[in-house]
């Protein structure tokens, strides 16, 4: 191979040909390494993506976050509070043992009682009772009607109850994260078998021949190499060290498009980038008058929030800062997702309108702001924030921009000021894990209330009781059409009327492959071997 590389184009063309003929092995350079192979350890995208290839779930999302049956063949409601899941016949784990309802219940128990990890799967297991009807029939019972049952079931992965002896009384049923990391307990029923994990280097998976289900298995052996540095990842692809990469930097998209050795696949994600504004303090720490003196927090006034929204030239940011690889946003999820509002348009750039609104609200001369955001969390995050700083400053709101690493930023943004959000205006993003609108509404716009588990990530503490009520109603409505209507209406209130947050754009993710391959871009931003297909 190395000698061939010198021949440049010819070599790549040749290796592309061999890939087409053999279509056996693939090396994928990915940005983020999972933190564990334990399926309930840590509910984050890199883990869910990687482990989900080894352990199947009852139902799963396809690349467009549409639900399909994975372990379950079919599912339906039996009555208002009971869901029935039918398992496929003949399912096997990688060690050859049968997969039955017992394994599903075992998995849920371990997920629900997980100790010591960073698991958040309890969010999906709580309030649900699993009842075995027979080996292949499962009932899940809830206290109140629960429309999001199938969405919740896309999260918990199913492991073998005989994975490593059985010590049901022990902590995490006697299986520690380490047992999964070294392969001892890494026995699922997914399309790929776990081979090895060299931390910081790679994870190797192998095709599972006994797999039954709808997920494609185009590869015999899959190597995921972890390359965090953005240019190094692109370089690895161009140098032929890897066959494909994820998270192509936006700046390189234009050039790679023209490169005959490379194919790009990009798709919109479920992640919206938006601004949170302080709406719970009369005296907000990072808003002052232009001369630096204290003023009453102007962000409390919805007209001011709307004015700020009008100062943002979303088209220009997408074009100049995001290299066209993003879509301007007017609400919480892009068109086509469940529960989005048909009434909300992308806010147009309107400096005159902004000025008028500011004057109406009693701030004809504007005020001074310091805005905050992470510099290593979202695509081009620091640059977007700086562009917004330029736009605010240019429109009469002198703005300072401060960015910091995500570990420091999120702590301070959530609870930096004696348990309360520290900043006045922050840039953050939200990906809807359930693939519909209730997730962002519940976490970002609903009134912050610990006891109800609402508004957990509401860093601006926006609150509108009317919208809360509508959201609660939606969450208990089983009828899909009716629920979608209620969610859309709640979005109209939260964004359209109140401007509780200011949406900027939806992220677009790009995967790059060598010629001859392509990727089915996924809205949930996961990078899966099964979605790499011949061109």
């Amino acid at each position, binding site marked *: 191979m190395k000698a061939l*590389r*010198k021949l440049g184009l010819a*070599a790549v063309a040749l290796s592309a040909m061999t890939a087409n003929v053999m279509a056996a092995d693939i090396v994928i350079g990915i940005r983020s390494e999972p*933190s*564990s192979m*334990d399926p309930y*350890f*840590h*509910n*984050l995208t890199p883990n869910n993506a990687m482990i989900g290839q080894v352990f199947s779930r009852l139902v799963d999302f396809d690349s467009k976050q549409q639900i399909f049956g994975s372990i379950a063949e079919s599912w339906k409601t039996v009555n208002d509070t009971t869901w029935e899941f039918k398992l496929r016949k003949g399912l096997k784990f990688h060690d050859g043992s049968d997969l039955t309802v017992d394994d599903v219940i075992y998995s849920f128990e371990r997920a629900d009682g997980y*100790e*010591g*990890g*960073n*698991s*958040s799967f*309890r*969010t999906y297991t709580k309030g649900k009772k699993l009842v075995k009807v027979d080996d292949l029939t499962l009932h899940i019972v809830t206290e109140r009607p629960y429309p999001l049952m199938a969405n919740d079931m896309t999260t918990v992965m199913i492991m073998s109850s005989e994975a490593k002896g059985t010590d049901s009384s022990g902590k995490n049923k006697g299986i*520690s*994260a*380490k047992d999964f*990391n070294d392969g001892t307990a890494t026995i699922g029923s997914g399309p790929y078998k776990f081979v090895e994990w*060299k*931390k*910081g*280097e*790679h994870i190797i998976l192998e095709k599972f021949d006994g797999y039954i289900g709808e997920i494609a298995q185009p590869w015999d052996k899959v190597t995921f*190499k*972890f*390359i*965090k*540095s953005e*240019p*190094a990842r692109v*370089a*690895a692809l161009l*140098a*032929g*060290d890897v066959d494909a990469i994820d998270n192509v930097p936006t700046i390189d998209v234009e050039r790679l498009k023209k490169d005959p050795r490379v194919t790009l696949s990009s798709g919109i994600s479920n992640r919206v980038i938006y601004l949170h504004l302080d709406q719970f303090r009369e005296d907000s720490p990072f808003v002052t008058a232009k001369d630096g003196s204290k003023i009453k927090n102007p962000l409390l006034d919805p007209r001011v929030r709307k004015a700020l929204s009008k100062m943002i030239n979303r088209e220009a940011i997408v074009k100049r800062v995001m290299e066209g690889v993003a879509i301007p946003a007017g609400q919480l999820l892009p068109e086509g997702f469940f529960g989005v509002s048909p009434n909300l348009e992308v806010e147009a750039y309107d400096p005159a309108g902004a000025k008028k609104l500011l004057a109406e609200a009693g701030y004809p001369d504007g005020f001074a702001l310091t805005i905050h955001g992470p510099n*290593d969390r979202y695509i081009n995050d620091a640059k977007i924030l700086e562009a917004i700083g330029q736009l605010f400053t240019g429109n009469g709101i002198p703005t300072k921009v401060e960015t910091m*690493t*995500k*570990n*420091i930023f*999120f*702590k*301070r943004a*959530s609870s930096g000021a004696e348990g309360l959000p520290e900043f006045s205006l922050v840039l953050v993003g*939200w*990906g809807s*894990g*359930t693939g519909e609108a209730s*997730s962002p509404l*519940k*976490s970002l716009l609903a009134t912050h209330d*610990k006891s109800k*588990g*609402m508004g*957990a*990530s509401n860093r601006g503490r926006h609150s509108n009781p009317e919208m809360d009520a509508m959201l609660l109603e939606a969450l208990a409505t089983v009828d899909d059409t009716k629920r979608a209507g209620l969610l859309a209406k709640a979005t109209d209130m939260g964004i359209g009327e109140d401007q509780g947050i200011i949406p900027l754009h939806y992220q677009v993710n790009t995967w790059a492959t060598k010629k001859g391959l392509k990727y089915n871009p996924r809205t949930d931003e996961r990078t899966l071997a099964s979605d790499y297909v011949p061109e």
Partner: protein
Amino acid sequence: MTVFVIRRLMQAALVVLIMSLLVFGGVFLVGDPVEMLVADDADQAEREAIIKSMGLDLPFYIQYLRFIGNALQGDMGNSFVFQESAMHLIAERMPATFELAFAALFIAVVFGIPLGIYAGLNANSWISKTIMTTSILGFSLPTFWVGIMMILFFAVIMGWLPSSGRGETVDVFGIQLSLFTLDGLSHVCLPAVNLALFKLSMVIRLARAGTREVVHQDYIKFARAKGLSDTRIIGVHLFKNIMIPVVTVLGLEFGGLVAFSVVTETVFAWPGMGKLLIDSINFLDRPVIVAYLMFVVVLFVVINLIVDVLYSVLDPRVRLQEMKS
């Protein structure tokens, strides 16, 4: 000598203790990793459960005393992120980093000392001037920038060497090493040179400065007058005397190479301890950060000890006895 060493080791224990408090406290001040670890849609109760399960709800001194208690029994705690023993995680990554650091040190010494001596002996030749000017370039550019330029040139444009990662490893006395396979060597080339550049310049300059100083000393003149061969003068008398600053600096720099290889490892995706550290810092994975730093402290104490002992061997005028008095 033995007393000196024992005394040094006792001091080291104290240093480690103070260090642990400083680092533990420092990372405690920065914050906790929970915000980074929980899923976006976790609610407040879930967040609190996680904080509790990690013992992060306890006051600082209790957390610290717990840590000390466990550390005394050889347990540096479990990583917040991986829930595996922090020491185990570090040990897993150690061979890769040491391999890289040794390779870099090797390059720096093997090329640095002869070039430096040459430049010192022939101060006015154009070759010496070229060597010195180039050595200035060596430590003038940020490592990460040189690294990416090297990737761009050697991997992307020329296609001679792989751009990132570690090559195939073989088992050598139970340790996975990549220096003994062709694939491994081709992978280690770029990162090792990248890491070595700075040290190489430093060695060249130290060797040259030392040489220029030593050649004017009386004993060299005397040796010349006595009619000793140039080879012997340079190889024995000169070499021995310029080694003092070189050994001091290299001793320190090896620790530095290990500890600071963070950037090279990040650019070249080299799976060593430095990359583990930067990842741990990004996640505020306190147990790993603390364990890593404890390890580095011990490493430095040992290196300093060796440097001091070598000092006395190389320069009889410096006596260990008086250092302890």
